């Protein structure tokens, strides 16, 4: 059995045990900074009505659903769900200014003696202080994605011409017999690797310092595979005051214009990276 089939079998088994017929759930999009009891209309996943369940001056933005997760093997369907999730969070953000987004497919269940609705209310009540603290942290700010790439070829070239040792090795290889040339090439590669990493270190620290100045908080994410010819050397989520993103953009523009470098600047996103964890 392939890994994927195994996974799927496992998932379906789990779904079968989880989906208890007739049990009610509440799909939660976000927690917003307002105590309104209000409907946002049928803007939810599969056109469900989205509404707010308030507690004091916060509310959970939800729709009613069976107590089971959304699941589909059709990627287009899942993609549409995810986009809708995001649109609802956006709508809430527009209405109330500050929201704490949840990740896709979070469904609060009912329990033996307690409705799903009551569970949502109790959750808000229990976490109220924490929510208020997190709302204060992200108030007036948005999340932006910043990814810095370089072109390894261009960088390697400039490092080669800047290093007498590499230049010399590079020259010597041409004059060596095959076996020896191989050893030289190994040495050259090791040297190059070291130089590239040192350079990447310098760039990371330099850019990090420059970007940090315009942000309230930063999360360093793992770098990802980039399109051919490019390598990602920095992947940040930045929490930025709404009126400071242009300054950040200007600084990023400077990095983007450096030879052999490129910057991807995305957002504004709801503050997904700054509301989880401790």
């Amino acid at each position, binding site marked *: 059995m392939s890994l994927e089939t195994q996974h799927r079998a496992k998932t379906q088994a789990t779904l079968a045990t989880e989906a208890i017929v007739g049990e009610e759930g509440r799909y939660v999009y976000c927690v917003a900074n307002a105590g309104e009891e209000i409907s946002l209309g049928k803007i939810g996943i599969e056109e469900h009505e989205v509404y707010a369940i308030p507690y004091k001056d916060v509310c959970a933005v939800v729709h009613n659903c069976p107590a089971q997760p959304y699941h589909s093997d059709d990627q287009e369907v899942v993609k549409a769900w995810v986009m809708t999730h995001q649109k609802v969070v956006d709508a809430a953000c527009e209405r109330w200014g500050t929201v704490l987004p949840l990740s896709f497919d979070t469904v609060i269940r009912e329990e033996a003696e307690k409705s799903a609705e009551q569970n949502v209310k109790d959750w808000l009540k229990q976490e109220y202080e924490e929510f208020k603290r997190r709302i204060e942290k992200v108030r007036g700010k948005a999340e932006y994605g910043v990814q810095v790439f370089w072109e390894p070829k261009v960088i390697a070239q400039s490092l080669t011409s800047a290093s007498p040792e590499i230049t010399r090795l590079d020259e010597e290889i041409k004059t060596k017999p095959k076996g020896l040339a191989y050893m030289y090439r190994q040495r050259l590669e090791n040297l190059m690797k070291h130089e590239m990493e040192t350079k990447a270190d310098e760039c990371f620290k330099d850019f*990090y310092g420059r970007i940090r100045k315009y942000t309230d908080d930063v999360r360093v994410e793992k770098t990802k*595979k980039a399109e051919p010819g490019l390598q990602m050397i920095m992947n940040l989520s930045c929490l930025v005051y709404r009126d400071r993103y242009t300054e950040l953009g200007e600084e990023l523009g400077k990095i983007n214009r450096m030879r052999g470098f490129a910057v991807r*600047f995305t957002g504004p996103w709801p503050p997904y990276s700054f509301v989880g964890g401790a």
Partner: protein
Amino acid sequence: MEPTRNSHATLVDLLDRVLDKGLVINADLIISLAGVPLIGVNLRAALAGMETMLEYGLMKEWDVRTRVWESEHRKKNVEPIYTAVVGR
């Protein structure tokens, strides 16, 4: 430069956030979602072959080291501004 949020070009950025991040709810309250990570994995694999891996093969360790540096740096350096504002 201006930030972009064109829904096609930034779908991967959106998925990174919507599938992995956000407010966490106490596990007792929610349906346990064994299917969710799978949705993320399959969808992303289909979208862009986006494993977290560096081409040139050589810089994976560097990437890890860099994040360690940042977290040390963060501990040693200035508290984020918001703590001053909120007075936590």
